[in-house]
């Protein structure tokens, strides 16, 4: 009977996680608009429902009923596939992130993580990069020059920060001694890694902003230069998929920062999943705050930042961490 229980447990967890995640992402758009509104002396959406609470639903319906346009000269299969790739990658990234302590139900130990795999961190890198493919392909296949420029920027940006992104986290991995995210969290029971690795935390924060293509690193989109860049030709639900993927990615990266540096679900008194949500929300708020404050960087500056600052700094961080751990 054991395999059946396993399947049932997994299905229930998947359903719960995906619905909670998608619901949160939908309302994250509202939260972001509201928060930006208060930063910018305006009120944000308040027409649809009380406090604009039905706005995400209205946006969803609108996305579904809009005409779906595929440009004549587009590379149609790639064009259709691109948003799917990005969306799927963004959604499946969350699978390995532990969002709470394990508990016992009906005599079974249930871990609050969808897939507690050994190579959790590698998997996240792989999926994150895969998502970028959707953006590159989407901009290219639309056969639009602005889209092409957006794609080129996405590709260039991906290469410049991805190397640093991996190197930054090696320090964390050295201390935790594992790529499995649950074990990384368990290793922080004594002290959060942000204390051991404050430099890496800041570096990762910057690199993560670049990974999720947000201001000041929203190169592929940069609407005032490229008029929306890679998704310029996308409409209807395909466009919405890109948007959802962007926010999913944002949530996942915030959750990852929580897991790697802020002790994941660990915390006193309150249940683990509440601590996890709280910490993730704080990170997300900081992301939105940054969006409201900073101008956009120029893409060659991002490249310089990636290669001349993030990369050497990450290397130095690895060396120092390894040295200290070896001495201990």
């Amino acid at each position: 009977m054991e395999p059946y229980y396993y399947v049932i447990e997994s299905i229930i967890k998947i359903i719960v996680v995906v619905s909670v995640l998608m619901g949160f992402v939908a309302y994250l758009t509202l939260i972001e608009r509201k928060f930006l509104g208060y930063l910018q002396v305006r009120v944000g959406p308040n027409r649809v429902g009380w406090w604009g609470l039905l706005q995400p639903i209205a946006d969803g319906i609108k996305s579904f009923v809009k005409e779906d346009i595929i440009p004549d000269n587009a590379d149609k299969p790639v064009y259709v596939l691109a948003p799917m790739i990005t969306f799927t990658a963004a959604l499946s990234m969350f699978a390995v992130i532990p969002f709470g302590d394990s508990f016992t139900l009906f005599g079974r130990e249930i871990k609050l993580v969808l897939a507690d795999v050994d190579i959790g961190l590698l998997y996240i890198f792989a999926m994150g990069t895969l998502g970028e493919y959707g953006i590159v392909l989407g901009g290219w296949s639309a056969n639009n020059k602005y889209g092409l420029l957006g794609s080129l920027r996405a590709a260039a940006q991906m290469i410049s920060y991805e190397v640093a992104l991996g190197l930054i986290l090696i320090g964390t991995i050295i201390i935790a001694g594992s790529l499995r995210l649950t074990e990384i969290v368990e290793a922080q029971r004594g002290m959060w890694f942000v204390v051991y690795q404050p430099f890496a935390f800041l570096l990762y924060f910057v690199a993560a902003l670049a990974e999720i293509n947000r201001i000041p690193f929203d190169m592929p989109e940069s609407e005032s230069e490229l008029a929306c860049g890679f998704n310029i030709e996308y409409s209807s639900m395909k466009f919405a998929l890109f948007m959802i993927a962007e926010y999913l990615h944002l949530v996942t990266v915030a959750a990852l920062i929580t897991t790697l540096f802020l002790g994941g679900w660990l915390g006193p008194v309150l249940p683990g999943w509440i601590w996890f949500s709280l910490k993730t929300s704080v990170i997300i708020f900081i992301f939105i705050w940054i969006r409201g404050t900073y101008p956009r960087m120029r893409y060659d500056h991002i490249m310089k930042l990636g290669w001349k600052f993030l990369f050497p700094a990450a290397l130095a961080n690895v060396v120092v961490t390894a040295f200290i751990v070896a001495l201990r």
Partner: protein
Amino acid sequence: MAETRTMTINMGPQHPATHGVLRMVVELDGENVVNAQPHIGYLHRGIEKLFESMTYRQALPLTDRLDYTSGVSNNLAYCLAVEKLLNIEIPKRAQYLRVLLSELQRIAAHLLWLGTHALDLGAMTVLFYTFRERETVLEILELATGARITPSFIRIGGLAADIPDTFLPRVMAFVQEFPKRIDEYETLLTKNPIWKRRTTGIARMSAEDCINYGVTGPVLRASGVNYDVRKAYPYTSYEDFDFEIPLGKNGDVYDRYLVRLMEMRQSTRIVKQAAEKLPPGPVSATDAPQVVPPDKNDVTSDIASLIRHFKIMEEGFEPPPGEVYSSIESSKGELGFYIVSDGSNKPYRVRVRPPSFINLGALPKMIEGALVADVVAAIGSIDIVLGEIDR
């Protein structure tokens, strides 16, 4: 070796960063601009030609449709030219009010520029802050003139009416508050490292190039050339006011930003002085009955006034034949009107010297070898208004 091919993209006329309907045909090698050509004319309404079929008085509302971000300045420039043609004297109170209104308008125009320019470079919040203050300015303008964008309040021979009593207290309140608001914008941008990297050394113009291209306004002053019509050829009693002309050094986008911010502070000073020193008296020329319509109350009671009113409204006035050029410092640069009169009640020819048009001519020079992102920064830094360019 593979052949290198350039890509030609069309920025505009529908593009979020071209400020209206400017079209740039940009030839790109990767992201580097090889060649850029501005194309204009999408907003051409034939305004210069329209002048010829209207009396001098009727043509006034056409002028604030030129640079629709600073309507008062356009009205002023046109009125000054016609007044020069007529050779009439404007009372001091009207002159001070003209200064006050046009400096308020300059602040509004610069605020609009700052917000959109920051938005072009990705800083979205600044737009909402500047529009908050711009709204205050527009409300003050509306209080006096009855319109927010297109006042047509400055008339040939003076002003349309005197200001209401509530006007000056609101101006003073704004003048008190505004410098703090400028500090607020500065905290967001001036020392922001990303902002500095995006703007310093971008779209640089040397003083010599600026003069060769005929560039005027903040773009010229950012290159260190001390030329401001308000100081060089004072008009409308600008010589009575104490203010400085802010100058830049490097002539890049950052210096243009700084110059405009400092200009807003100076304009605030001028507004304050004008409000404090405002003399009493009439707001229209008293020695030009053929130009200035009679008082509204007289029109209903006095037959002579009624006839005069009717004549001015129907036939207008006939300035002596001749040619006249008069220019002011608008928020974009030197705005001039060249009017040829043949002695009839309609101008024979009106030619506008729009600062945006001439400044735009320097754009291809500015963005030689720049990146796409710099093109956006450069367009923003010139502060163009297509209504004025295409006319």
